[in-house]
């Protein structure tokens, strides 16, 4: 099992070729995807064509960059021209975008190869990938458990080595939590770091695309390719993109690392807490200075999130109405019936719940009490982080309060929402967050360690994660699949 960087070296030395590697991956997908169910669509023909093109470039000694010929998986929430983009939803099942998301165009320009589109919770709403309208994805470490969500397909694909890296999207933890559950690296960049153009919107002020990879360097390489200003996204910033791989070797000597007291809560899995505390000691051993910090409004973040995200979602999902694209219910006698049935049949239970909640929170008479209030609390959550970052360079904490749970274990929506209690505040504040393997439970399930950085300081996150990775064995373990 190689990493992205290692494969790049083998390509250049001639030990491996993109067509050979892509064929091997397609075979492995054919063999293992029926168990893991990470992919929703496998793009065999285009992947092989892309591999041939990459091979020519490499042979000519003119590769497009470090991602040239690297096979990746794409969460099915990201639009791919000519390739069905269903977003885990029946309502978008027939949809074939006539355009590429900006990140897809950038990966293409970097020579990356797309193996397929990965399964996900419908419209990225969920924390287990069980909300996919099509089928649940399994955790490669234990097929009876969930991979996390909503980018569960991407995380599982990388963990099971069905792709070398992947793209996911993170609105409240949808990259980091599945990365933690599947034992991969997952990075949610600063809001505005990566273009959202072509990312099917869930909650526009929170959504951000980011990479999965088996190691930190891989995540840095993918981020490098997709980051940067995009004139098609008004919320993408012009802040310059640094050289992320160059930053990896910086070390963490003298780095001030904050440990937020509110992220070690009653009821969290003791094995998770122990692993994170041990990881903090490792960071100290590497020369970091740790100190306790407080983020006092953490307890309110989840509640604020469950107003803001559904409100924006109820608006973003209004366009799925059976008129222009996607599913249309049969038999509607008039427009009102067609709308109501299409949306009733096209959306799953969780999506309907959030549309209802969001519509309610924005409706006349409730706006100030709910949406307005949540936006003010969002300011308080942001201030907490701003104050903490006056004293420290980054924060370290668990990614999730538990490890991967069994399929069907969390029937109650609210219990499912609580999976994201440590990741949601980061989205509300627009900060970068990274999850990396921080240990395993006694039964062999991965534990995620979360690092949270200052706005646009992904470089520090990556360098700290890299330093930790260099002295720990977790990323070298792989699930046994046959």
């Amino acid at each position: 099992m190689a990493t992205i960087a290692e494969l790049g070296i083998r390509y250049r030395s001639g030990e491996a070729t993109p067509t050979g590697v892509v064929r091997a991956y397609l075979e492995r997908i054919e063999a293992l995807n029926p168990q893991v169910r990470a992919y929703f669509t496998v793009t065999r023909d285009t992947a092989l064509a892309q591999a041939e093109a990459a091979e020519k470039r490499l042979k000519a000694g003119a590769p497009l960059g470090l991602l040239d010929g690297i096979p990746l998986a794409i969460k099915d929430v990201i639009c791919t021209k000519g390739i069905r983009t269903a977003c885990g939803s029946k309502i978008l099942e027939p949809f074939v975008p006539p355009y590429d998301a900006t990140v897809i165009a950038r990966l293409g320009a970097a020579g990356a190869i797309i193996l397929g589109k990965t399964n996900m919770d419908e419209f990225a709403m969920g924390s287990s990938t069980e909300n996919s309208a099509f089928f649940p994805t399994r955790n490669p470490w234990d097929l009876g458990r969930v991979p996390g969500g909503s980018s569960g397909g991407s995380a599982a694909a990388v963990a099971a080595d069905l792709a070398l890296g992947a793209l996911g999207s993170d609105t409240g933890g949808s990259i980091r939590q599945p990365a933690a559950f599947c034992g991969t690296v997952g990075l949610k960049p600063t809001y505005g770091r990566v273009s959202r153009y072509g990312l099917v919107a869930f909650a526009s002020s929170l959504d951000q695309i980011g990479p999965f990879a088996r190691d930190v360097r891989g995540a840095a390489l993918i981020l490098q390719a997709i980051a940067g200003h995009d004139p098609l996204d008004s919320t993408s910033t012009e802040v310059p993109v640094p050289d992320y791989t160059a930053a990896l070797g910086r070390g963490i000597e003298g780095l001030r690392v904050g440990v937020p007291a509110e992220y070690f809560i009653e009821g969290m899995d003791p094995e998770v807490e122990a692993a994170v505390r041990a990881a903090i000691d490792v960071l100290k051993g590497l020369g970091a200075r740790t100190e306790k910090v407080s983020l006092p409004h953490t307890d309110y973040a989840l509640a604020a999130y469950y107003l803001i995200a559904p409100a924006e979602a109820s608006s973003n999902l209004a366009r799925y109405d059976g008129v222009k694209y996607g599913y249309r219910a049969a038999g509607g006698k008039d427009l009102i019936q067609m709308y109501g049935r299409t949306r009733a049949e096209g959306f799953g239970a969780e999506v309907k719940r959030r549309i209802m909640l969001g519509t309610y929170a924005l409706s006349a008479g409730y706006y100030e009490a709910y949406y307005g209030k949540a936006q003010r609390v969002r300011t308080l959550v942001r201030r907490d982080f701003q104050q903490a970052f006056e004293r420290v360079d980054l924060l370290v904490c668990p990614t999730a309060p538990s490890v991967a749970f069994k399929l069907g274990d969390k029937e109650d929506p609210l219990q499912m929402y609580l999976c994201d209690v440590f990741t949601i505040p980061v989205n509300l504040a627009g900060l970068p967050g990274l999850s990396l393997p921080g240990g395993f439970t006694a039964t062999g399930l991965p534990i995620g360690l979360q690092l949270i950085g200052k706005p646009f300081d992904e470089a520090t996150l990556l360098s700290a994660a890299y330093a930790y990775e260099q002295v720990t064995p977790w990323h070298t373990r792989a699930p046994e699949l046959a």
Partner: protein
Amino acid sequence: MAEPKITLAEVEHVARLARLDLSEPEKKRMRFQLDAILTYIDKLRRLDTDDVEPTSHAIPMVNVMREDEVRPCLPTEEMLANAPEREGDFVRVPRIIEE
């Protein structure tokens, strides 16, 4: 028992606003679940936010604009390729006035 946060009539009203046809059991379940979530969300009331400005964008930016330049359109066929029903170059929808 505490007063429910949301009545069945409100569930029905919101479902109409959101153009979601819910079955009777769905409505009841929805009310129960929304009630639980809204009860949880009620904790926000404990915070005094009178002097706090709302955040709509976590990363503050202003004046992002494009120049007034014409770009190529999507060919009509490509646009209509995704339409559930078309007539000529139009998208077709059922009658607008209710039966």
